[in-house]
Each structure stands twice: as C-alpha cells, then as structure tokens.
C-alpha cells in the first residue's frame, strides 16, 4: 500500500507523533515561534490574558499615536489573530491563579515612519518585554513594531482550560538579512487579487518583507498600463484577467500595512512575447531565410522607437510602484531571432559587435539602465546580465537563480562589489514527494568563498513560485509552509539550523497559519486542532 522506505520522513514522522499529540496546553510557547528570534529568554512564570480586558495600545513615550494607521490597523489585526478565532470559548477560567497581562504597550523610539513605505534599509528590529500587568514592545520604527506584534501573537497559547496564556519573557530581535522575498508569477497564470492579498498575510506571519511581483511574461500581460492600455487589452489572457491601477494600489497599500515592499518585475528583452500584441514594432521580427517568418523574438534593440517606448513605460512604472527598485529581468535571452534578422545583422556590423550577440544584449541593457537612472530608480537583474559582462552601475542588485554552482556565482558577483540576492536553491515550483522544506532550510546563503566584505553584499534571498503549474487553486498550499523554511533562514541567526527543532516549531506554525485562514499544507502526518475552520 504505502511505501515506507523514506528514511528521513519516517524519522520525522515519529517526531511528529510525539510533537503533535502533546496537547496544545503543555506545548511550550517557545515551540511555536517562527522564525526564531535573535534572543529569547523565557521564564516559567505564566500570565493569563482575557479577551475582554486585554488591550494593545500606544505607550505614552511613543512617537506614534492613534493617527498612525499602520499601527492602528495592526493592533486590530493582531487582537483578532490572538482572540478572534476563539470568541465562543469565552467563559469560566476566571478563577485561574496566574496573574493577568492586561496590556501590550507599543513604543516607537525614533521618527515612526508611519506614512512611509518600507525600503531595503528599514529598521525591523524590536524588543519585547512580557511582564505582568503590562508588556512593552519597543522599536525604532513601525516596521519593528509589526515584526514584534507577530512574535507577541506567537507567544500566546491556550491552556487545557482554554485560558489564553503567555510566559513572562524577554525577546530581542532583528533580521539577519534585509531582503526576504517571495516571487509570484501572474503571467503564466493570472492570480486574483484576493490570492495576492492572502499571500501577503502569510508573508507577514513569516516575517517576509518583499513581494517580487513577476507581473508579465511571454504568456500574458495582465498589468493595465495607463500610458499604453493596449498592452493589456491585447496581451492579457482576457479582459477580466488584468490588474487595474486600482488593483495595484490595493496590493501596494495592503503590503505597506504589513511592512512589505512590492517590487515589480518587467522582464526584457526576452520573455516579452505578450508585449508584442499591444505594441507594434516592439519585438524583433524573426526571419526565415530572406522573408519574415511571422514570429517574433526579444525586444528589438536597434530601433529608437523601442527606447522612447521604454522610457515612457518605465516612467509610468516608477510612479505607480513606490519602491526604489524595479526588477528588469534580463534572463534567458534567445539570440536566434536576432541572428536571423538582416537589419539586426547590419546594426551589429555598424556597431562592430561582430557576431557576438551578447554585445547587443549589453547594448540594450545599458540603455535600459540609463532610462531607469533617469527616473531615479534602482535596478535588480537576473544573473545573466552580470554573466554577460554588462557594465553595471554600482548598486545594481544581481539575483542568482541558476542552480548549478550558485555559490561560485555569489563569489564572482560579490567580488565585483555588487549586492546579491539568492534564489537558486529556493525554486519552490519544483515539487517533489516528501519533506522538501528540509532541503530549503539547510541552505546557508553565505556558504561561498569570499571575504567578509563580500559576505555583507548578500542582502538576502527570495523563494520563487513560478507559475507554469500554479494558479489560485494550488498556490497557497504549495507555498506554505515550504517558504516558511526560507523565511527562517533569512531572518534567524546563522546557527539556528536544527531541522528537528525546526520541525516541531514549524508544525505549530503551520497550524497557526491554517487557523488564520491560510491553507498551508501539512509537513507530515498529524493534525491541527482547528482544522475544521480552514
């Protein structure tokens, strides 16, 4: 019937039975923390919380107050995560002996940045002191408060009488890497806005802070451009498979309220088939011998009209998306079509590129970089752009995605002084049977040859869920809790590595996500206490 030859899963399975069948009450709350904070001191002294009395509010010393939307929204959200799902459990438990925790007071120390967008240098550190009757959450900025509220909510559990309980504790926390991202792909399959928002919820539960929105690709162009409406009119799957300007605004604001940046990717000059439908002459006509074959290749890099189009287009993008970075793609450019086209051959001769089409690609990318600089944005590119010896401006971020020898690539890129994002080991669209999260968890992003200065250039990484086989039907269970493994790797200390310990905590965390409405799939056999309310 079922094969049992799977060593690790089986071992972990035994663990699962031990870990999960312990009633929630006696499960230590430490067990449920994900990702593990930098430093956790936990006393055995218990405090109880009652939904009627407990309150999250601003400390009088805080630079933020009730006018800070980000915090007001977060207070309400976390109150609901903590109590909302249990309302019908209210009742006795008054006679409980433990002293009560009545308040969590939040204090922002520096300028709060309430109305700002998060960026790559946003301070997400916080400290949390849980003591009766008032707990204090202190952070330099609102971003740290958001992370601290998540941690606080993870500390609370219900004992066997249903009483909300928390251990007195002292937590000091900050992330190991500043860029912790999830890539979603809305071109291979359209993802309804609701699905994207749900993903942002789950990202916040895992302290991710970047949504890398691979918004268009060969297959479809769902981004509704104000300047070039024909792009989505002609290039989307259907007129209902588009993101309107309002949809985009909703996503960006929903993300901001959770301390998450939204980085759009408009991948060129390859992966651009869908652009061609709504923008005449943008793509290169491919030739079959001396005649046009009727098919098109990458963006045509030899026409002025191309660059005036890109200039206007990216000018729009730079105002629609507030983040400093735009992802420009630059991966997997196919040269055959360029090679077949006589005008391009002529251009190559003129420019003295010989038959080295990489030089043509470099020519294109350089001009694109200039356009991006004029609109005062920073660029992120896939590793090919670096590999092809494009002269990059300082500060261009290189995303390493090719699995073979990715450590060497990290060495090379950082040796040249460029910041690196790691994705190669975290392509979550590659599924396999069993507990593959362990594989993602065991990756060490700084495990490459390089000076300590080189290591500091690794600004983080991204779990990528490409969309060839993923849409709204299976995105959530395919992403969570597998991406959670990446989340902890990017947030927690380098020496937090035990997959046995992680298994226990992640099992609890997965059930918490399910309770909060995220259909995160199981790690192994076992159950969640509130399964029926998915």
């Amino acid at each position: 019937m079922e094969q049992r030859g799977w060593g690790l899963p089986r071992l972990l399975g035994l663990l699962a039975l031990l870990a999960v069948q312990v009633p929630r009450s006696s499960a230590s709350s430490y067990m449920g923390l994900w990702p593990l904070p930098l430093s956790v001191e936990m006393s055995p002294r218990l405090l109880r919380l009652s939904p009627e009395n407990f309150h999250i509010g601003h400390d009088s010393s805080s630079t933020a107050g009730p006018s800070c939307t980000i915090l007001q929204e977060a207070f309400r959200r976390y109150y609901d995560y903590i109590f909302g799902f249990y309302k019908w459990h209210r009742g006795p438990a008054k006679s409980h002996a433990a002293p009560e925790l009545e308040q969590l007071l939040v204090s922002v120390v520096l300028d709060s940045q309430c109305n700002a967008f998060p960026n790559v240098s946003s301070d997400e550190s916080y400290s949390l002191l849980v003591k009766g009757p008032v707990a204090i959450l202190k952070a330099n900025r609102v971003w740290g408060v958001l992370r601290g509220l998540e941690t606080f909510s993870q500390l609370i559990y219900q004992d066997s009488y249903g009483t909300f309980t928390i251990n007195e504790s002292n937590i000091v926390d900050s992330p190991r890497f500043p860029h912790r991202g999830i890539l979603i792909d809305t071109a291979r399959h359209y993802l309804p806005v609701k699905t994207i928002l749900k993903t942002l919820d789950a990202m916040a539960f895992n302290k991710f802070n970047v949504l890398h929105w691979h918004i268009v690709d060969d297959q479809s162009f769902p981004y509704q451009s104000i300047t070039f409406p024909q792009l989505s009119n002609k290039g989307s799957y259907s007129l209902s498979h588009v993101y309107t300007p309002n949809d985009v605004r909703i996503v960006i604001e929903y993300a901001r309220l959770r301390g998450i940046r939204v980085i759009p990717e408009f991948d060129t000059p390859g992966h651009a088939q869908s652009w061609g439908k709504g923008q005449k002459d943008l793509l290169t006509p491919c030739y079959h011998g001396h005649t046009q074959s009727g098919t098109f290749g990458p963006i045509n890099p030899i026409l002025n009209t191309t660059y005036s189009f890109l200039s206007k287009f990216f000018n729009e993008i730079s105002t629609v998306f507030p983040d400093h970075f735009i992802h420009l793609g630059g991966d997997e450019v196919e040269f055959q079509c360029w090679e077949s086209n006589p005008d391009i051959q002529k251009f190559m001769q003129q420019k003295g590129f010989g038959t080295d089409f990489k030089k043509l690609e470099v020519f294109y990318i350089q001009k694109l970089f200039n356009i991006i600089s004029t609109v005062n944005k920073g660029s992120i590119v896939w590793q090919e752009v670096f590999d092809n010896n494009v002269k990059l401006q300082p500060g261009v971020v290189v995303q390493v995605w090719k699995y073979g020898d990715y450590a060497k690539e990290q060495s090379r890129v950082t040796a040249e002084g460029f910041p690196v994002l790691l994705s190669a080991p975290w392509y979550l669209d590659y599924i396999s049977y069993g507990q593959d999260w362990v594989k993602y968890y065991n990756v060490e992003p700084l495990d490459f040859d390089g000076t300590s200065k080189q290591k500091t250039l690794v600004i983080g990484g991204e779990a990528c869920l490409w969309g060839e086989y993923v849409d709204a039907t299976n995105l959530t269970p395919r992403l969570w809790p597998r991406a959670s493994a990446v989340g902890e790797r990017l947030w927690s200390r380098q020496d937090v590595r035990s997959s046995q310990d992680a298994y226990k905590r992640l099992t609890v965390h997965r059930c918490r996500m399910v309770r909060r409405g995220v259909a995160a799939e199981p790690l192994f056999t076992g159950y969640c206490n509130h399964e029926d309310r998915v």
Partner: protein
Amino acid sequence: MAGSALWFFLLLAAALAGRATALWPWPQYIQTSDLRYPIFPHNFQFQYHVSSAAQPGCSVLDEAFQRYRDLLFGSDFWHRPDPAEKQHTLEINSLVIHVATPGCDQLPSLESAENYTLTINDEQNFLFSETVWGALRGLETFSQLVWRSPEGTDVMAYSKFNVFHWHMVDDPSFPYESFTFPELTRKGSYNPATHIYTAQDVKEVIEYARLRGIRVLVEFDTPGHTQSWGPGAPGLLTPCYSGSQPSGTFGPVNPILNSTYEFMSTFFLEVSSVFPDFYLHLGGDEVDFSCWKSNPDIQDFMKKKGFGNDFKKLESFYIQTLLDIVSAYGKGYVVWQEVFDNKVKVRPDTIIQVWREEAPVSYMKELELVTNASFRALLSAPWYLNHITYGPDWEKVYMVEPLAFDGTPEQKALVIGGEACMWGEYVDSTNLVPRLWPRAGAVAERLWSSKLVTNLDFASKRLADFRCELLRRGIQAQPLNVGYCEQEFEET
C-alpha cells in the same frame, strides 16, 4: 426591459470541432454533426419515458435531474424570455430518459451496468440505459455537451469514477467511531471530539455517493498498520520484546490469541452492517515481522503450529482466520498484493489490489501472476497520485495500459479496474483537491474509455477544458500548464 440581454440560453452542440472536444472521459463511441440546438432554462426538463422502469420518485434520478439542472443553468437564471423573442431554430426542451431495468433504491455494485446511449437529433433527445447508474453517466456526458452562449464526491461523478476507496484508519489515527468499540476512537483518534467520523457522517457519505452511482469500499487494514487500534483495544496488538523483557512498544495485531479473533469477529460484524457494499478491503500489506519475532509467546506458538521460522505462515494463519470471519458475514473482500505474494490461501473470489511498482516483480508481471492464479485484480501501482513531481505528470498516468501484460483473454478479463490513490502523509484538506484533480481525471479516462483513446494532444486539450469546467462547478482543480479559465478559482 431588454429581454434578450437578460435571459440567456445554452447550446447543445455536437460538432467535434466545438464542444464535444471537451468531453472527459471520452465515450466508447461517439458520432457528431455540426447541428446546434438551443436550450432554455425556463422550459427545459428531464423527463422519464412512459415505458421507463424508473419513474418520478426514483431518488437517484430525481436528485440527479436537480443536480444537473443546477450545473447547466446555475440557480440565478430563471428569467422567462419575451415571447416575441421566440427562436425559430429547433430547440431542445426535454431530455427523455428511459431506464430498462427497475432499481432506484439499491446501491451500486461491482456488477452494476453503466452503459448508456445518448441520442440528440431533430427527431429525439433520448437517453437510454440499462440501469439508473448508466443514466447517471449519460447525464454527465449530456452536461458536458452543453455549452453557454454567448460566452460562456461530485467531482468523482464528473469524471465517472464509481468507487470511493476509504482507507479509514491506519497507524497514526483511528477516526472511525465504532459503536461496539467506542474506545477505539476515544483513545485512537487525533481528537475524539472533532477528528472522527460518526455513524451519521458515514451514512451521509454513503448516500451522497449512492446518488452519484459511487460505491463506498471501506478499508480496515490489519494485521499491520494498526498502531492506532492499540490504545483503545488492550491486548489486541503484539507486545514487542527487547531480549527477555517487553519493550513497551507494540507490533501488528497479535495473531495467537483467541481474544483477537473474538474482537475481529465483533468488529467486522459491525463494519459489515455499516458499510453496505458487498466488498470490504482488509488491507494485509507491509506486515513487519520483527516484533512478532521478538515475542517469546509467538515463538512458542510458531513451534506448536510447526511454522518453523517462516513468519509468512503466521501471517497466513491470521489472514485466513480473518477471511473466514468476514466470509461468514456474506461479504467479499479486497486485499493488497502482499496477501497473494505471501501465498495466503484465499477464497477464489478474492480481489487482489496491485500497488507495488517494482518489487517483488514489476506491476505488469504481478497482474500476470495474479490473473494466472485466476484471481481478479485491481491496479493502483502506477497511480499513486500522492507522489508528486514537477510538470505535467498526468501524461505518465494517462499512458498506462492496464492490460499490457502477457496473458490470455480470460486473464485480461480478470482485471476489473483500478484506483488512483492519494495517500495522506502529506495531504489534508488544505491541498487534497488541487493535488487530486485534474490528475485523477487521467486515470478516470483510462478506466472508462476505449483502449484506443491514447492521443496525448487530444487528451491534453480536453483535459484542460475539463479542468475549467471543474472550476466552474466549484472544484479547486489545479492547472495542467500555462493558460487560464474564464472563471478562475477565488479565495473565500
């Protein structure tokens, strides 16, 4: 009021270039034309033919008519058209159903006939079938032929599966609430308050399945895979020994005690009455002998019986006693292939389910051996859908030919079908549906359609359409490849 804009109608098309290509699984025989007929929600009805054996009051068909009405028209579209808008084309205002043999209140069985003939032309709109089960399959096909103009364990029935194999309990938990042994669930389920199936749950599942022509085949796997039985049935499992001391752990069901068989006797009496299908699945797979070996009482018993060191003989002893018990209740049984491999003497009408891909022999060889011994076989080995890989793995599943083994026509006739299996180690309600559908659809067509329907391009297109149709019907079926459906899945 712009009548024509507010009411809408459906078209029944037969053009192979059109809607018929969305059929799944592909019918045994189909002949089509270009003619299209409109269908209007307000006056379309399913009708029993006057000489049909099934007449109004037939629960299976009455319910099915309701279900397919909703699937065809939804529940929102009941506007009457303006009489002035009357169409001139020939419209279809009824589908007449003729069932040849009576029987509406029965359960489907292994022998139930599911064949049907569906005729749509200028003269008649007629569905003929031997049994109500055939009528259900025909109604599904009819619903797949209908499409919208101008734009356009339900899902098991949508793909014409007809057996729900319910692997109810296993090592990790015992959710079946037994009324003779309530302690089994109380002590053996994940959570005895919530993570259980009550008698009422079971009844509802069986009736829901029956109305869709689906049998419920329950599995209570013994003597291995029974850890969860232990806490609620003291003395049932074998105590394992470490040297001369019990180690505190337990192994398979203890086959040497009379009390074991008394327990099984009572337990399966209950199961036989709760689950009406003629067949029970008795498991019998992956029995680990190490615990039996360690136990001195079992060693004594082996000597007494003259089994030597051959624990397969002990397993045989257990299974044969169990089979005698179940046979006495007038039930047939299905077992996993190990029972056959280990040469347990079983009754000739036993069904052997082949699940191992390679060992001890390839599954095709196993089918050959099983049928050569004159047993009926069910194939599952290539259809373990819980094993996932990147990409369109449904193709591999689709291309399996269950009869591609060496054997006589008589042997081939003994392969009664197969099952797509979705084992639950990594699956729960969060990911079950998208992991199962539309991949299981590939198995469904292999088991329903003609052996000659094997063109992957043709299947790929139809299966993609079928997947969109499943989405439209509210089934969270995952995509096969890049693309889209008019109606995407929406988070709730």
